[in-house]
C-alpha cells in the first residue's frame, strides 16, 4: 500500500502537468448549456465555446469564417448563401450539415432565442439546403445586417440528430451538450464549474491551444480578483472599474477593454422617460434633466474612465451610423435646466423642491443613481430611487409601466437594426422586456427604421439612421448617458483572448 501511494505521488504530478489548463472565473451559474433557447449572458459565456455559428465576429465586429468557410451575398441583399466547411464535425463524429442549420433556425432559434426570433423570424422567407454543405437563406426584403447576426451568440447551430427527438427546452442534451466548437463538454458541477476539453478535430487546425478549459463559478467579484492574483484563475470576464488603477500596476495581470461581450455590445446606459406619465411627458422636463446631469463626472467617477459620454442615440462603435453632433445642444448646464423648469411652470416651492421623480433600476446601477441624485437636487428635482431585482424590475417597468424614470443599459449590437430599433418603434410597446419602455410613438421613426432595415447599401442606410437620431434628439424620449466599456483581466502569461465574443478562448495560449 505504501509503495503504491509513493508511486502514485510521483506519477500524478507528471501526468497532470502535461496538459495545459486555462481557468476562467465567471459570476453566474449557467443552469443549462443550450445557447439556442436563451440570450442570457450566464449561459452564453459557457456554451459559446462548445457550439459554433456560421460566422464569428472579429475585433471590429466584422464577420469571419466559422462553420461557414465562405459565403456570397446577392446584390439586393435578399439571398445569403453559405458553404459549410467540409471538415466541420459534431463532437460525436457526425458531420455538420445544412440540415442542422435549417433545423436549428426553424425549430429552435425562431421559437426560443428571443433576439434572433424577433430580429430575423419574420424576415426569413425560407431556408434551402441544396446539398449537405450548402445552405441558402432567402429573405422577404433586403437586409444587409443579416450576416452579423449569425455568430454563435446570436445563432448557434445545434445538431439536428440529437435535438430532433423531443423539446429543446427540456432536452437532456441541455446538460450534456454536443456542439461543433473548439471545446468539448466534459462535466458540469452545478454551482461550481464547467469542464471542457480541447476538440482535437476542430476545423480550424492548430486551435485551440489549451487542452482543458475550466470555467469556475465565483459569484463574488472580490473573490475573483483574489483568485486571479494568486494564480488560481487565469481570466476574469467582468472586472469592476474600481479595480482598474490597482490592477494596472500589477505586472502579472494584463487588462483589456472591450465594448462588447457575450451578452451584447455597444452598450449605452440610458434613462427612459415614461411618456405616459404627468411630468415626464413634458418635453421641457426631459430637456431640463438632460442639462442637469453631469455625464463627464459619471464617466470619471462611476465608470472610472472606462467609457465615454454618449454623443448620439446610436453608439459610436457603429461608426458609419453614428450621428456625432446630434446631442450637442444638451450641454451640462444646471443654469439652463433651472431656466427651462422655471419657464415650464415648475417653480421651486418653499422647501426648494420643484418636483419629485422616481427612478427604477437594477441594484448594480446604484452608483449612477447616486450621481444623478446629487446633480438633480441642485436644480430642485428630488429623485427617489427604487432598486429592484431583475425579475421585479422587468415586471414593474415593462408590464406595469409603474415608473417616472428608469435606468437600463441598452446594448446596440453590431448593427442598429439589432439593438437600437427595438427601443423606438411603436410596435414594441407593451410587456416586452428591454424594448420601447418609454412608449414612444412616432410613425415617421417607425417608417425610417423599416426602410433602413431593408436597404442593402450602408451609405444609404446611414442617411436614414442619421435622420432618425436628429428626430430623437428633438423628441428626447430617452436620455443617453454614457457608453460603457467592459474590463477583462487575465494572467499576463496568457494572451490571445477574444474578449468581445462568446468563444473568447479560441485563440488563447
Amino acid at each position: 500500500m505504501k509503495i503504491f501511494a509513493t508511486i502514485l505521488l510521483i506519477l500524478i504530478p507528471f501526468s497532470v502537468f502535461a496538459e495545459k489548463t486555462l481557468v476562467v472565473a465567471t459570476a453566474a451559474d449557467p443552469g443549462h448549456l443550450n445557447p439556442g433557447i436563451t440570450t442570457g449572458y450566464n449561459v452564453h459565456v459557457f456554451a459559446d465555446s462548445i457550439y459554433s455559428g456560421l460566422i464569428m465576429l472579429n475585433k471590429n465586429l466584422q464577420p469571419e469564417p466559422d462553420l461557414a468557410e465562405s459565403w456570397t451575398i446577392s446584390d439586393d441583399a435578399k439571398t445569403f448563401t453559405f458553404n459549410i466547411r467540409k471538415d466541420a464535425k459534431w463532437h460525436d463524429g457526425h458531420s455538420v450539415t445544412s440540415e442542422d442549420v435549417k433545423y436549428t433556425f426553424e425549430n429552435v432559434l425562431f421559437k426560443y432565442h428571443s433576439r434572433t426570433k424577433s430580429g430575423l423570424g419574420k424576415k426569413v422567407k425560407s431556408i434551402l439546403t441544396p446539398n449537405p454543405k450548402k445552405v441558402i437563406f432567402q429573405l422577404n426584403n433586403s437586409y444587409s445586417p443579416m450576416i452579423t447576426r449569425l455568430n454563435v451568440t446570436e445563432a448557434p447551430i445545434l445538431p439536428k440528430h440529437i435535438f430532433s427527438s423531443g423539446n429543446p427546452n427540456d432536452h437532456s442534451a441541455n446538460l450534456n451538450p454536443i456542439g461543433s466548437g473548439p471545446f468539448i463538454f466534459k462535466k458540469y458541477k452545478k454551482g461550481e464549474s464547467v469542464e471542457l476539453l480541447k476538440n482535437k478535430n476542430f476545423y480550424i487546425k492548430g486551435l485551440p491551444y489549451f487542452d482543458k478549459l475550466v470555467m469556475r463559478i465565483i459569484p463574488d467579484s472580490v473573490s475573483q480578483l483574489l483568485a486571479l492574483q494568486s494564480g488560481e484563475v487565469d481570466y476574469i470576464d467582468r472586472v469592476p472599474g474600481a479595480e482598474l488603477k490597482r490592477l494596472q500596476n500589477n505586472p502579472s495581470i494584463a487588462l483589456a477593454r472591450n465594448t462588447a461581450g457575450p451578452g451584447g455590445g455597444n452598450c449605452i446606459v440610458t434613462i427612459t422617460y415614461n411618456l405616459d406619465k404627468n411630468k415626464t411627458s413634458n418635453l421641457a422636463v426631459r430637456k431640463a434633466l438632460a442639462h442637469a446631469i453631469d455625464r463627464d463626472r459619471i464617466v470619471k467617477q462611476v465608470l472610472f474612465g472606462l467609457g465615454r459620454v454618449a454623443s448620439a442615440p446610436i453608439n459610436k462603435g457603429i461608426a458609419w451610423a453614428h450621428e456625432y453632433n446630434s446631442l450637442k445642444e444638451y450641454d451640462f448646464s444646471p443654469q439652463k435646466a433651472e431656466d427651462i423648469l422655471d419657464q415650464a411652470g415648475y417653480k421651486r416651492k418653499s422647501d426648494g423642491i420643484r418636483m419629485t421623480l422616481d427612478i427604477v433600476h437594477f441594484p448594480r446601477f446604484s452608483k449612477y443613481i447616486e450621481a444623478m441624485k446629487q446633480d438633480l437636487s441642485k436644480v430642485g428635482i428630488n429623485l427617489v430611487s427604487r432598486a429592484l431585482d431583475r425579475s421585479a424590475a422587468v415586471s414593474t417597468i415593462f408590464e406595469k409601466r409603474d415608473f417616472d424614470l428608469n435606468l437600463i443599459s441598452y446594448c446596440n449590437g453590431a448593427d442598429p437594426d439589432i439593438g437600437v430599433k427595438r427601443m423606438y418603434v411603436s410596435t414594441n410597446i407593451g410587456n416586452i422586456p428591454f424594448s420601447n419602455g418609454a412608449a414612444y410613438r412616432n410613425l415617421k421613426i417607425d417608417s425610417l427604421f423599416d426602410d433602413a432595415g431593408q436597404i442593402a447599401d450602408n451609405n444609404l442606410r446611414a442617411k436614414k439612421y442619421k435622420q432618425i437620431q436628429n428626430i430623437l434628439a428633438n423628441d428626447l424620449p430617452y436620455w443617453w448617458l454614457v457608453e460603457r466599456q467592459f474590463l477583462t483581466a487575465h494572467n499576463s502569461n496568457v494572451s490571445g483572448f477574444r474578449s468581445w465574443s462568446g468563444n473568447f478562448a479560441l485563440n488563447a495560449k
Partner: protein
Amino acid sequence: MIARIIQIPITLVIILCITFFLIHAAPGDPVASLAGDFVTKEYRDLIIKHYELDKPLTIQALIYFKNIFTGDFGTSYYFKDSVLNVIGNRIIPTLLLVIPSIVISSFLGIYLGYLSARSSTVLSRISIPVTSIIVTSIPTFWLGYLLILFFSIKLNIFPIQGISNPRHSLEGLYYYVDIIFHLFLPLLTMIISQLAQVILLLRQKLIYEISLPYFRTAQSKGLSYRKAIINHSLQNAILPVITVAGNRFSFLITGSILTETVFSWPGLGRLMIQAIEVRDYPLVLGILFILSVIVMVLNLLTDLVYTLIDPRITFKSDG
C-alpha cells in the same frame, strides 16, 4: 411524543402552502431569467404555457401538492434537472461546512467559556468574553476576506475558493485531501463567527451555576474550585449550548450564504438566493421543504437529547 411526530407533516403542508402563494405573489416571473434579453409576447406565452404558469394559482397549487405526495418535487426551471438532484448536489458541501463548524465551535466555545469562568485573575476572566464580542462584531464576509488575504495570498497555504482544484481533476485520496484543503478557510470563518455566542452563553450559565448553593456544598466536600466546576456545574451549563447548537444548525443550512459567497462554496444558501432571484418556483419550494423538515426533525431531536441528558426534564403531554 406521538403528537409531536404527527405535527411534522401537518406543519410542512401549511408552510409549503404559505410559501407557494408568497413566492407567486412576488412581482416578476421566471420568463425574464430564462429568456435573457428582449422577450417578445409570443415567447413569453410559449414559456408560460410550457410550465403551466397560466393556470389559476389554486389549480397550480393543487397540481404541485398532488405531485409532492407522489414524491415528485418537479423540475427546476433554471437548472433543467429534477429539484431533488439539484438540492442533493449542494447538501453535502453544506453539511461539510455546517456540521464540523457547529461541533468544533461548540467544544471550543465550551472550553473557552470554562476558562474564562474559572480563572483567578480579573484580567484573564474578562479577556475572553471581550475578545469574543469584538470578533463577533466583524462581518462574516470581511472576516472571510481577511483570512484569504492572510492564509492564501500572504502565506500561500490554502486555496482561495471553491471546493476542489480547478486545474487538475484529482481522483481517490487526493480528491478528498483536496476538499479538506479547500474546506479549511471557510470552516475557520464559520467557527470564528459562531464562537462568541457559545462562549458567552456558557460563561453566563456557568457563573450562575457557580453561585448556586450546591457548588458551595461540593467545595466543602473537599473538591477544588476547578474540580467542582468540571464535575458538577459544567454539565448543567452545557444544556443551553445544546439547544443553541440545534437552533444554529437549522439557521446555518441556508444561513451560511455569506461564507459561501466569499469562498464560492457550492452550498444551499447560495442556491436558495439564486432560486428566488430567478423565480425558480419548484426549486425554492423544494429547498424550503427540505429546510422545514430539517428544522422540525432537529427540534425533536434536541428535545429528545435534552430529556436524556437532564433527568429533570421529561416529555410531558400537553395538559
